[in-house]
């Protein structure tokens, strides 16, 4: 616990930090930030996720329910042990944490439903951490009041958690986690407990807070928008493994699994590229692209790039022409999303008017075209 405090102080002062690190000598390997390989085996489920982050970086673990995101978070916090002998490691600023109990780790957690202590006021909730780390009651309270003021909650200091709104409770939870001056901040589905309207507001504010935070922040979410807005880097986890990672824009442009493609709203195909043509796997049709590639490749295009025709277009210049059957229709605002199967399984967006003119109904046969310039091909 003492080490934690030392780090907490050092963090406020770059020079002190340097000195502290120099004095520590061989204790750490000098590398800043998070360096982890989280291996947790539970029955037939195996989580094996490598996670690194520099101080100041916000990393989002994105994945479907049951992918192991929360297990990874609990492993980082020390609430779930790494499976012994499975090759896992966990270092924070060069200090190994594998064997450290959760109360000694310089890690703060914002839980999904916040878990604010219902019998304590907002102020005492925030003061809890400093108090546990050795501050006197008045010191802890003063520090807590400062944090609450910083997060715009000064007038709610005396309120019990059940009197707080969702957004306020979230900020108190954030203040409570930050008040321990963690070197690693973990957020479990930080916006999931909020209603849609509050969510927008809190998301923008949380983004500001996280951008200010000088140590590593890792957040877990199944919501791609939350992940893309809040994080500098996404780590997509499916079935206990990392399937893709990179900056949000990159992931949104070049998804590599069906799950991510669905999340970012793209049609995604896997195939073998040869020049401007990608021959899809499993004997599917080919897609003509503008990029020139060879070898395994992905092709992605948005549903809005698909044009539908009731008759086969005559003299069609579009090389990407497929005969499909409508299997489902869904409306999004003024758009209709058509789910098509046939030569190619594809999602198409069109206006309500076009949908009416085409007389789209499940079972109807249509011709779908996509311009090569609207597709995006990249190595697989």
């Amino acid at each position, binding site marked *: *616990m003492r080490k*934690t405090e030392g780090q907490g102080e050092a963090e406020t002062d770059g020079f002190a930090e340097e000195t502290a690190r120099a004095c520590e000598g061989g204790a750490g390997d000098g590398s800043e930030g998070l360096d982890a390989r989280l291996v947790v085996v539970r029955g037939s489920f195996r989580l094996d996720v490598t996670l690194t982050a520099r101080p100041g970086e916000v990393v989002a673990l994105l994945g479907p329910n049951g992918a192991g995101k929360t297990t990874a978070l609990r492993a980082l*916090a*020390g*609430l779930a042990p790494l499976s012994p002998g499975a090759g896992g490691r966990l270092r924070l600023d060069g200090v190994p944490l594998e064997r450290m*109990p*959760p*109360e*000694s*780790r310089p*890690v*703060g*957690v914002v*839980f999904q439903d916040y*878990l604010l*202590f*219902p*019998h304590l006021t907002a102020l005492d909730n925030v003061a*809890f*951490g400093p108090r*546990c*780390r050795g501050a006197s009651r008045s010191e802890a309270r003063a520090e807590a009041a400062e944090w609450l003021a910083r997060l715009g909650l000064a007038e709610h200091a005396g309120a019990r958690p059940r009197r707080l709104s969702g957004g306020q409770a979230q900020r108190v939870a954030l203040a*409570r*986690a930050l008040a*321990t001056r963690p070197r690693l901040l973990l957020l479990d589905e930080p916006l999931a407990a909020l209603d849609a309207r509050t969510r927008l507001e809190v998301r923008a504010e949380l983004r500001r807070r996280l951008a200010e935070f000088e140590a590593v922040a890792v957040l877990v979410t199944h919501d791609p928008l939350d992940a893309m807005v809040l994080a500098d880097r996404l780590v997509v986890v499916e079935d206990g493994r990392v399937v893709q990672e990179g900056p949000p824009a990159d992931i949104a442009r070049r998804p590599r699994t069906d799950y991510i493609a669905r999340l970012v709203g793209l049609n995604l195909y896997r195939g073998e590229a040869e020049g401007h043509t990608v021959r899809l796997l499993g004997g599917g049709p080919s897609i003509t692209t503008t990029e020139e590639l060879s070898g395994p490749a992905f092709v992605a295009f948005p549903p809005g790039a698909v044009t539908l025709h009731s008759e086969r277009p005559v003299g069609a210049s579009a090389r990407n022409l497929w005969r499909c059957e409508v299997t489902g229709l869904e409306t999004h605002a003024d758009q209709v999303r058509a789910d098509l199967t046939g030569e190619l399984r594809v999602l198409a967006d069109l206006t309500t008017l076009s949908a009416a003119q085409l007389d789209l109904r499940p079972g109807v046969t249509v011709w779908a075209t996509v311009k090569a310039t609207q597709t995006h091909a990249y190595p697989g």
Partner: protein
Amino acid sequence: MSPSSPVPAGVEGGPAGSARGRRARPAGGGRERPTGGGRRAGAPLPLLLPALVGILFLLLPLLALLIRAPWRDLPDQLTSAQVWQALRLSLLSATAATALSLALGVPLAWLLARTDFPGRGLLRALVTLPLVLPPVVGGVALLLALGRNGVVGQWLDAWFGITLPFTTTGVVLAETFVAMPFLVISVEGTLRAADPRYEEAAATLGASRFTAFRRVTLPLIAPGVLAGAVLAWARALGEFGATITFAGNFPGRTQTMPLAVYLALQNDPAAAIALSLVLLAVSVAVLAALRDRWLTAS
């Protein structure tokens, strides 16, 4: 007992809640069972008769106590030195037994609810055995363990000169032996219902398990602990078998109210009734204190 505590389900609302439930029931009756409509009016005779006899059987003795109470002499009876002595000893020893039960029983309940070790189920069964054990047997067992020649008692006597049987301390021990399991069961149930993730949240804030227990869990389960304590206290107050076996029946030292009642019945029935009324009043008070917890359980 704060009715706003999140922990025990069904605590909130109290009598008002149950009244609301009763009123609401006929409205939803149609959805329940085909016989729902005739449910309230037409209880079949084979059920109604025994039920009425049962009510009578439970209430008649209490009624008799009230009818035969020497109301005129009551003030004198209750202010007699013997009654006061017994009452004082009873309240004192029951309170001490409750304190001891809290000190040992709450940690024990935590151990049973929050940790996992081989034989936990067996331990739980053994610990709660006094719930079903005839108290006299408990008294005999205590004598064999802590009596002057008991398994442990002989060493207490030889090394420290401590004698437990037939002392006020013995009364407290006998009552604790019988009452503590009630507290353990009550607190363990509350602990199991409480969300253990609050303890995890405390841990991530730097709290050791003990600090988390003291500053987070204990306040959260306070209503359950209080209910368990009241239950244990009531049980200790009425304890007879283990007390008379282990601690004897010495006025002023080990003669508690129930013992005094039993003794008085032999030579001064009026005093016995007066003492009984006091215990009845205490019981009713306890029931009133716990009404939120139990009367809404149906």
